[in-house]
């Protein structure tokens, strides 16, 4: 426990500070890759909160990313209002959607695999509805206009590679700090108690419905914020790319590989998973076998979870601990 936390703080602080200081020297590719790493670390923290802290396996997080992304894009392109206002609308909408799913699940006793499928069902329904809804551009999506030369990134929440890098780094840092804080806070204890044994926790006075719904809502709002940045980063938003199963799966792979329920797992997971996708792509490309990327990525996933039962972060902690003892 203690090593875990101390190592985490040292490694986390070093990583975030290092990435912030190194920014001017990074080449465009590394910066773009790290931008995705940090963005998915944030997504990972959001799902870690629902999945790792509260034990709700959600396979529909793309829904919240989509809601956040659409809110911001629609507010700015259709109404010409500030993207901050879009966030102000999108995050509560996503939180409400998350809370509604959490409430339904609680009210009707939907758990485990069934909860995962409930989340998929809601997300897929919304994807189909968005695909057929002209107001949100249907499957045609919404394209963001090019930036004006006098663009102020903090006003438009759009900018060049450096802006997105900084924003993603900020989110990853904030997300990790938030989870570290929540883990030691009253609500964090209550969430983990609910995850480990809901009946026992309730018998100890933990208000299960309230806290589970709250976890869903916070997780959804966090994902919506990430979705807004993701939409801006891509410059375009489609129901398929922002609300589809593919994104939902991509969001949860990182935290699971990294170590669910730990504060630094999602960060470590994203640091491995995002470059892994890129490396396997390059591998397929260089071998000239077009399915190789998928084979390589899949095998790597199987190997990693096979060899590291608790995830990457706990394995790192255990490694450092054994080194410590040997000295």
């Amino acid at each position: 426990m203690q090593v875990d936390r101390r190592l985490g703080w040292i490694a986390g602080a070093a990583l975030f500070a290092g990435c912030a200081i190194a920014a001017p020297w990074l080449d465009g590719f590394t910066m773009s890759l790290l931008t995705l790493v940090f963005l998915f670390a944030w997504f990972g923290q959001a799902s870690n909160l629902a999945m790792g802290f509260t034990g709700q396996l959600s396979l529909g997080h793309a829904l919240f990313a989509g809601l956040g992304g659409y809110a911001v894009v629609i507010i700015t392109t259709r109404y010409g209002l500030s993207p901050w206002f879009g966030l102000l609308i999108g995050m509560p909408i996503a939180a409400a959607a998350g809370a509604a799913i959490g409430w339904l699940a609680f009210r009707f006793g939907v758990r485990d695999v069934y909860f995962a499928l409930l989340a998929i069902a809601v997300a897929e329904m919304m994807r189909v509805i968005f695909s057929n809804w002209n107001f949100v551009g249907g499957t045609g999506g919404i394209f963001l206009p090019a930036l004006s030369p006098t663009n102020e990134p903090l006003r438009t929440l759009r900018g060049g590679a450096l802006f997105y890098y900084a924003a993603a780094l900020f989110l990853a840092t904030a997300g990790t700090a938030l989870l570290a804080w929540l883990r030691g806070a009253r609500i964090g204890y209550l969430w983990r108690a609910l995850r480990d044994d809901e009946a026992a926790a309730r018998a100890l006075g933990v208000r299960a419905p309230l806290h589970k719904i709250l976890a869903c809502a916070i997780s959804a709002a966090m994902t919506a914020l990430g979705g807004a940045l993701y939409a801006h980063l891509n410059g375009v938003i489609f129901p398929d790319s922002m609300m589809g199963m593919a994104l939902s799966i991509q969001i949860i792979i990182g935290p699971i590989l990294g170590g669910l329920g730990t504060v630094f797992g999602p960060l470590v997971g994203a640091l491995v998973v995002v470059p892994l996708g890129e490396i396997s792509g390059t591998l397929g490309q260089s071998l000239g076998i077009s399915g190789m990327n998928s084979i390589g990525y899949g095998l790597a996933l199987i190997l990693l979870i096979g060899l590291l039962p608790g995830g990457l972060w706990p394995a790192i902690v255990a490694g450092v601990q054994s080194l410590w003892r040997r000295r």
Partner: protein
Amino acid sequence: MSAPLLQLLGISRRFGGVAALDGLDLDLPQGGITALVGPNGAGKTTCFSIIAGALSPTSGQVKFAGETITGLPPESVCRRGIARTFQVVRPMRDLSVLENAMIGAFGWTRHVATARLAAADALAMVGLTAKANAAVGHLTLPDRKMLELARALSTRPRLLLLDEVMAGLRPTEADAVVAVLRRLAAGGLTILLVEHVMRIVMQAATRVVVLHHGALIADGTPAQVVQDPRVIESYLGASPTDPP
């Protein structure tokens, strides 16, 4: 004595066609240790679950401190002052011993530091202070049972429901638990315990309530109850004079 702390009024509970509880009436005054005994399947655990809100009765009412609490969810029941332990211990594996004990305290405080102090107190009460920072996976069975008790205590209950908290313990260990319970009762806590081992019941309880087929068949001091012919017939077997 004033109005009873806990009142069960005509509680029935059916599972399918079987009545686990059949019109049970029970008053529990403030203070003292009451043992709920009876053969397997007599409805003891069902009775606990109904009081604690984990089950709803098919009919009847539960009143606690004058308020009807029938049908309230377990967390609300707990927040009104009824804590329970489970027959099979259910520690939260990801939390340390101290953290396990803190959960109950969050029902009455929002401050982590306060909860930590309360948990430490509860652990001290059951003698687990030395193991406060251990992982629960490393605890022995008696320690886990004590943790279960400490967790319940940290909710600051007025009524404590203990479901076979001494099952599986060696006699010396059980005696230590009895001592703890007596100390708690002396501090004003009302305890209702389900127990199989008659030796402990006789030792710990100030009052014994006997259930059989979901109905109350005897109620009195331990000495009275062991002499009751219906109890002897249904539960204690043919030789009442033998010390159990």
